[in-house]
């Protein structure tokens, strides 16, 4: 049963900051809503919860949560999160980020943390633009889009972040739009519980600077009507319905369609588990050597 907003707000949000700073119809608020419900469902200890973000509208989210929060520098949230999680594996670290933050300036840190399989949950508000600075092109903006910095329309191919994350070895990747409330909440929950790096990409609306639609609500319909489901076994039948071939699968959206679904869910030792082993191994070695020399 979904808990009432009143009650959840009371417990999980900083009321002196509400209503949020986000524009009317901005998806970021919805993601706040979904995250609140996810952490409530999981009955998480708020004291152990650390929200980390970079810079961007989406990165303002941690401020709203009654928990620990770190609003870092543009693109670097995951580097900070790495330090936080490595030195205190008991914490639950959730990163909020935007497409500019993670797919442009911060892409490297993101992929490296996937490689290391740091046990954090990364939630990306992918509004396909730089909302905070007024709507410039981002690496996830579709080719052909007009933005403030592509006045003659975007000539760059775009990243599909979820597929890139998968290719880098992420153990859990899920991709939805903000119109998929229930699925988004489920994905966030699953991501938090997952051991290792979980990536949740949420295609979002930025009605202010992204001129796709004049009215926020038009996004809702667009998101629901234009999204198609990623088939769990896409690995083996890539070309079947969605992509012409693997290459396309990993680089672009299919003719403007939004691919949603659970992209990856697998198991692989996380960094902390391996580090724990390493510590034991090395300490044993140390004492053994010490004995030998004595």
């Amino acid at each position, binding site marked *: 049963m979904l808990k009432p907003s009143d009650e959840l707000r009371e417990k999980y949000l900083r009321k002196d900051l509400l209503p949020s*700073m*986000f*524009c009317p119809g901005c998806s970021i608020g919805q993601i706040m809503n979904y995250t609140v419900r996810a952490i409530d469902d999981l009955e998480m200890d708020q004291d152990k919860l650390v929200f980390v973000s970079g810079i961007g*509208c989406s990165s303002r989210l941690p401020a709203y949560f009654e928990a620990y929060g770190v609003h870092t520098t543009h693109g670097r949230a995951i580097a900070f999160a790495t330090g936080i999680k490595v030195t205190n594996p008991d914490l639950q670290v959730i990163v909020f980020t935007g497409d500019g933050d993670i797919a442009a300036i911060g892409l490297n840190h993101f992929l490296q943390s996937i490689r290391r399989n740091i046990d954090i949950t990364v939630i990306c508000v992918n509004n396909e633009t730089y*909302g*905070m*600075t*007024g709507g410039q092109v981002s690496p996830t903006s579709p080719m052909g889009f007009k933005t403030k910095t592509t006045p003659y329309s975007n000539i760059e191919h775009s990243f599909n972040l979820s597929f890139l994350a998968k290719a880098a070895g992420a153990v859990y990747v899920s991709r939805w739009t903000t119109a998929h409330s229930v699925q988004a909440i489920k994905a966030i929950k699953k991501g938090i519980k997952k051991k290792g790096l979980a990536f949740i990409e949420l295609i979002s609306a930025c009605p*202010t*600077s992204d001129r796709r639609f004049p009215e926020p609500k038009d996004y809702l319909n667009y998101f629901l009507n234009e999204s198609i489901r990623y088939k769990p076994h896409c690995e083996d039948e890539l070309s079947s319905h969605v992509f012409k071939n693997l290459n396309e699968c990993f680089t672009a959206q299919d003719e403007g369609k939004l691919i949603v679904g659970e992209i990856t869910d697998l198991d692989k030792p996380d960094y902390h588990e391996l580090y724990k082993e390493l510590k034991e191994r090395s300490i044993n070695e140390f004492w053994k050597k010490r004995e030998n020399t004595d």
Partner: protein
Amino acid sequence: MNSGKKEKTQTSIRFSGVGGMGVILSSIILGKAAIYDNKNAVQTQSYGAEQRGSKVKSDILISDLDDPSYPVFDKVDILVAFSQEAYDYYVTSTKKKSLLLINSDLIEKTSIKRNRFNISATSIAEELLSKKITNVVMLGALIKLSKIVSRESILKAIVESVPKSYVDVNVKAFERGYDFFQDN
């Protein structure tokens, strides 16, 4: 400006209101008009963080001097207030002789009487199109009252500053504002 000799030849104007009414645009249009009149103009603005923010302020100095001052005003010659919040906040920046032009649709509580001119700009704007052109109605009234720039120049500036398809309605809005007050 308070500074000696420049005082006579410079006029300071503050536009203030909330987002969505074209507060800043109106000051830019005014500045352009001043340029067409071969005057100098310096305009600054401030609003909230990055994208959003409700309270908006735009200051402009119109000057006959080659080296106009910079608009950091303690007191302004003219205050144009679009909303109650803005009025309340900025009325303290007027002096005795200041001209006050207020949007009476949104400003109900006013303390100062002297030199105050009320115009129901939002109603006029909504009547013509939407509150988005409140600014041009206000501008019309301002020009009529202050004569700070020429009618031709301000009309030219309006035409150049608004989307083509909205030129006519903006000109109409200007005229409504301009004709709101009788010649004084």
